[in-house]
């Protein structure tokens, strides 16, 4: 049955298959050809798929850098195979050090600090001052690594809600993402916000149902309007329906008073 389907009909099936638009019967017929290793079917399909790639290539659009950053963080935080999540992969790749990257960096940093201390003591007390600085540096590094590890833990937890916040009237082009985990807290990343006036700050609010907005921290933005905020777990707050950002006095306020710049509902 090598040549029951050919010519125009074969190309019709291949074109529809490349587009993912074949109805059940036609799709089954074409997949049978592919499974049988039909060279014409594969060639036609391949050419039509290349054609669609060219169509797509005519209208590229640069994605915002946040996507790449999130992907790299995700990759750094999880090994390729174990993260597949569907359990269907039975052949694990050789495991790579990626899995333990942050642990390794942390251990390395601590080891470096300890080694420096040992050497310093052996050489001379005149290094005492320097040692102290190194110790502080190591402690700061450790704190920073712990902070990053907690951020990564939030990013890779499936229970983490991701809420997109859109700009409102004062800053329609502003955007933000809130990653929220009821036990671990969350991370807000905002872009496109106007500079903060003297004595003011942006304040994040978490709103559940009809409840009053719960203050979730204040932040400012850099010269290009980008800011971020690490939010600790909020006592009594689990599921959040709306996140919003208002402009408030720099120290923050217990209930919102200023204009709202960003808001987003969770899905």
């Amino acid at each position, binding site marked *: 049955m090598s040549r029951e389907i050919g010519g*125009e009909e074969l*190309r*019709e099936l291949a*074109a*529809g298959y*490349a*587009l*993912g*638009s*074949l*109805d059940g019967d*036609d799709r089954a017929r074409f997949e049978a050809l592919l499974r049988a290793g039909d060279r014409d079917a*594969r*060639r036609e399909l*391949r*050419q*039509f*798929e*290349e*054609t*669609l*790639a*060219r*169509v*797509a*290539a*005519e*209208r*590229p*659009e*640069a*994605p*915002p850098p*946040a*996507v*790449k950053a*999130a*992907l*790299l963080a*995700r*990759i*750094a935080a999880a090994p*390729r*195979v174990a*993260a*597949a999540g569907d359990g269907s992969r039975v052949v694990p*790749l050789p495991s*790579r050090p*990626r899995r333990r990257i942050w642990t390794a960096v942390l251990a390395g940093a601590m080891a470096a600090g300890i080694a420096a201390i040992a050497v310093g003591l052996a050489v001379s007390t005149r290094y005492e001052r320097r040692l102290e600085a190194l110790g502080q540096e190591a402690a700061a590094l450790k704190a920073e690594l712990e902070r990053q590890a907690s951020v990564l833990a939030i990013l890779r937890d499936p229970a983490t809600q*991701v809420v*997109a916040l*859109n*700009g*409102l009237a004062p800053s*329609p082009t502003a*955007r933000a993402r809130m990653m929220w985990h009821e036990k671990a807290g969350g991370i807000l990343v905002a872009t496109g916000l106007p500079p903060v006036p003297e004595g003011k700050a942006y304040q994040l609010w978490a709103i559940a149902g009809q409840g009053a907005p719960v203050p979730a921290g204040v932040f400012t933005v850099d010269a290009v309007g980008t800011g971020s905020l690490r939010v600790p777990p909020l006592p009594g707050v689990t599921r959040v329906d*709306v996140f919003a950002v208002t402009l408030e006095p720099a120290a923050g306020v217990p209930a919102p008073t200023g204009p*709202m710049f960003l*808001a987003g*509902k969770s899905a």
Partner: protein
Amino acid sequence: MREENPVSAATDLIAGIARGDRSAFERFYDLHAALAFGLIRRIVRDRDAAQEVLQEVFWQIWQDAPSYDPSRGSPEAWLVVRAKSRAIDRLRAMRRREQTFVAPVDERVAAAPGNRGDDPAMAAEDRGLAQGALEQLPGPQRRALELAFLEGLTQSEIAARLGEPLGTVKTRIRLGLERLRAAFKVDSA
């Protein structure tokens, strides 16, 4: 023979990704993210949803790189097939949600720009400012192709939508794609 083409840089990068090389992944992303994102945006429109789909597509690339087979097509085509199918999945999910419930949306959120297909840049494109090969096809071929490629409809759904016989739709899709294939000189394998 396409095999006469030198093994492309992109193919090397996929091989690197398959070995778990993160810098290869980063370079592949830098080279191809705009290709995928442009297509995803044309399908799902919403910028935030498109970013999520893009991340899922490249996450899948990271996971699936070992299964890439260069004899089946270029890395670009491999990526586009994935981007298209993920974006269509997302589009269908968004439509289901719109049809099945009306959320008591905070009005300020609903009124915020960029939530739906009202992005000025997209609107400009829709007014025909961007002219690609697809836009230059005869109207009926273009329409059928767009309904399949950008809206995710099956051929029988397209026939119902356009009120045309199924056979006519199949022919238009074939003729349209063949014309594009010739325009892009994607021939001989």
